[in-house]
């Protein structure tokens, strides 16, 4: 049997507690018990830093770390980033009335718990047992660290016969592994056999998860309802419920499930982000705002920090921003600009993100009624987009919408034409594209084409035919281009072909422009000009 001092010596250990006396007492205890390499951290931020910088064999953390993130979140991040290997041990310290303690996701459970307060003898007793069990499970965890799930499964089966006392521990990992391998039928059978012996909360959730993957959504949901009635703190159930509702396209219930989860366990970043996304799509901006505000705050010093938190938050605030000088509007725009600036600062090396932030900045100005600022910012965004090598359809759509909001309809039209030519649009992007198209005012575009038309005529009159044709091409690319523009374009091209050389492509283009005009009534004052141009074109076609 392995003795504790042998198991602790040479191990790198991290002890986390927010109270200074507890920290030093814990370190002292560990040293007396045989540890030689112990670091201490006082909160989530410090702990995460330590875990990112060093490889720990054992982490012992208090669950409740005061204001910031709690022990469960440290654990989740450490395992999520694979900075804490499966072979490393995580022990959670909990207060005796752990009424507010929340269970984490099945894949992020601590190896064990120790209840506070504890004497050194209790610590010796528990740690010895915990580390021995961990040692027994080592082959499985080695396979997991090597990302060899099949191997892990084999180890589970082998250990189940060798270590019957650890049946539950092993089956817990086995169920997880089966689900990860998408062996859902087998996972379901395993969880059912466990539940036949005893109702255990993780087996209930495991069974519901297997049912979900097997598309038995109603059965899964029913089981989850039962499970949360029995174990109200088991928030993972709400997460899965929300996924079921999403699958059923019931976004309202998906949102309420997550709201229930958040009311029990508000500190989980990914859950807050998901709630924000769903609530935003449901146009429940109040809930979205709060969820994104929380996720931004919680993620600031964690591995989950992402530009999306800042940008979504700024977007979710728009509903309360208006040109009226109300308190809501002031607070909203202040918060939005703050989030935008923070995002720009953190992600300044990333042109995509700065671009996205700048778009939201422009929108904020628009909603505030500050048209000049909105337009200036939109132009900044335009320049930033030019720097992005391959702008995505989402980028272009967002930019087009900002162009529309800042009354740059022609620019928007240009972008939409580019978008229309793309073949990689998702279905929702197609819908968004159509919606955006309808927002463009035809009148404004016509004014713009007339503007180009005037410039082109100037070139034409100076005999700079190529320049004139280029501009006319631009003007006629808008479906709103008027009859006069079309006729001018035709005339420029025909003149070019008559004076210089006949070009098959150009001739074809003239035909298509003539097609766009269609038939013209004799009463039209441009009738004569139109027939002359048509005849000239016929001559050219014959010459081809």
């Amino acid at each position, binding site marked *: 049997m392995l003795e504790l001092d042998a198991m602790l010596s040479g191990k790198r250990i991290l002890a986390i507690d927010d109270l200074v006396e507890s920290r030093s007492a814990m370190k002292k205890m560990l040293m007396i018990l045989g540890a030689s390499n112990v670091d201490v951290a006082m909160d989530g931020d410090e702990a995460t830093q330590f875990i990112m910088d060093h490889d720990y064999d054992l982490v012992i953390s208090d669950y409740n770390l005061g204001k910031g993130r709690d022990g469960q979140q440290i654990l989740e991040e450490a395992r999520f980033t694979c900075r804490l290997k499966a072979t490393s041990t995580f022990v959670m310290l909990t*207060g*005796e*009335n*752990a*009424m507010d303690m929340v269970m984490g996701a099945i894949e992020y459970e601590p190896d064990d718990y120790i*209840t506070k*307060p*504890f*004497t050194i*003898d*209790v610590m010796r*007793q*528990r740690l010895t*047992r915990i580390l021995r069990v961990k040692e027994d499970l080592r082959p499985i965890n080695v396979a997991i660290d090597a990302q060899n799930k099949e191997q892990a499964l084999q180890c589970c089966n082998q250990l189940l016969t060798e270590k019957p*006392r650890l049946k*539950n*521990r092993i089956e817990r990992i086995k169920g997880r592994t089966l689900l990860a391998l998408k062996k859902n039928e087998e996972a379901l059978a395993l969880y059912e056999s466990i539940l036949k*012996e*005893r*109702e*255990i909360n993780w087996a209930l959730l495991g069974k519901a998860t297997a049912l979900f993957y097997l598309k038995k959504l109603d059965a899964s949901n029913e089981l989850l309802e039962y499970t949360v009635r*029995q174990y109200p703190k088991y928030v993972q159930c709400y997460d899965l419920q929300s996924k079921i509702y999403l699958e059923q396209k019931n976004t309202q219930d998906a949102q309420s499930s997550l709201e229930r989860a958040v009311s029990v366990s508000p500190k989980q970043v990914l859950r807050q982000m998901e709630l924000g996304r769903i609530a935003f799509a449901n146009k429940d901006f109040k809930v979205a705002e709060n969820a994104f505000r929380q996720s931004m705050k919680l993620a600031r010093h964690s591995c989950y920090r992402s530009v999306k938190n800042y940008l979504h938050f700024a977007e979710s605030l728009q509903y309360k921003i208006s040109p009226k000088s109300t308190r809501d509007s002031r607070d909203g725009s202040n918060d939005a600009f703050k989030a935008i600036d923070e995002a720009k600062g953190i992600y300044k090396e990333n042109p995509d993100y700065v671009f996205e932030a700048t778009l939201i900045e422009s929108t904020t100005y628009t909603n505030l009624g500050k048209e000049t600022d909105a337009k200036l910012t939109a132009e900044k965004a335009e320049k930033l987009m030019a720097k992005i090598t391959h702008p995505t359809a989402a980028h272009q759509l967002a930019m087009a919408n900002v162009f529309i909001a800042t009354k740059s309809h022609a620019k928007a039209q240009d972008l939409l034409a580019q978008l229309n030519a793309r073949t990689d649009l998702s279905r929702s992007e197609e819908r968004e594209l159509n919606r955006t198209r309808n927002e463009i005012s035809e009148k404004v575009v016509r004014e713009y084409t007339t503007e180009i038309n005037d410039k082109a005529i100037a070139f034409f009159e100076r005999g700079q035919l190529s320049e004139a044709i280029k501009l006319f091409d631009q003007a006629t690319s808008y479906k709103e281009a008027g009859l006069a523009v079309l006729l001018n374009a035709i005339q420029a091209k025909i003149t070019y072909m008559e004076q210089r050389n006949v070009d098959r492509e150009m001739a074809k283009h003239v035909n298509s422009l003539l097609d766009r005009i269609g038939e013209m009534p004799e009463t039209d004052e441009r009738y004569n000009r139109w027939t002359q141009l048509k005849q000239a074109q016929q001559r050219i076609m014959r010459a081809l």
Partner: protein
Amino acid sequence: MPFDVNTLLSSELHSIKNRMQALLSAQSDLADMLKDQPEYQAPLKSIHRNSQQLNQQLVELLSILKIQHTAFTPNIDENWLCDTVASVIQELALGPDGPTINLDFDHEFNGYYDEQLISIAVHNALINAINAGANNVSIAVEEEDNGSFMLLISDDGPGFPDAMLDNRTFNPQGTGSGLGLYLMSQALEAHHKDDLKGSLTIRNRREGGAVVELLVP
């Protein structure tokens, strides 16, 4: 959040208990330092007896609060019995003239139970044995095929008085062992599995001494 007296009281009691734990540990250090000085033994003994009694009453109060709490559901999880029992014995801070406690079960034995509740039950059983003046206490386990287990705590004291054995139910009557047994039975009955319910049985051994049987389903 609604104002919850129970939660408030319970967190107060926990901090008192932590302080009590520190006192007991200091007192045990002191007893060690003074163990060769006979003139200190009598007051030390008195301090020890009283502080243990205080600690016991605190545990009882906490148990009452926990079990009677309206929103109470036992927190059933996998536990190693050895860990649970060792912590209880630790907390008792037995003096040099306390009884010897033998753990006559597989140290790798683990089962599903609410550790705090089973701690309360074991704690009360041990206190009963100590108060009865037992010299040896044995803790054994009998495992059943259906996953439940029986915890047997037997001692070599005078055994339970007949009047107590005749009582089929445990009622909190005044102070003393009546309350202890009542709390134990409550702690056990909070454990359910399918149709099975935890229970407490007391009896006397033919060769003398008391046996407390804790059935954990």
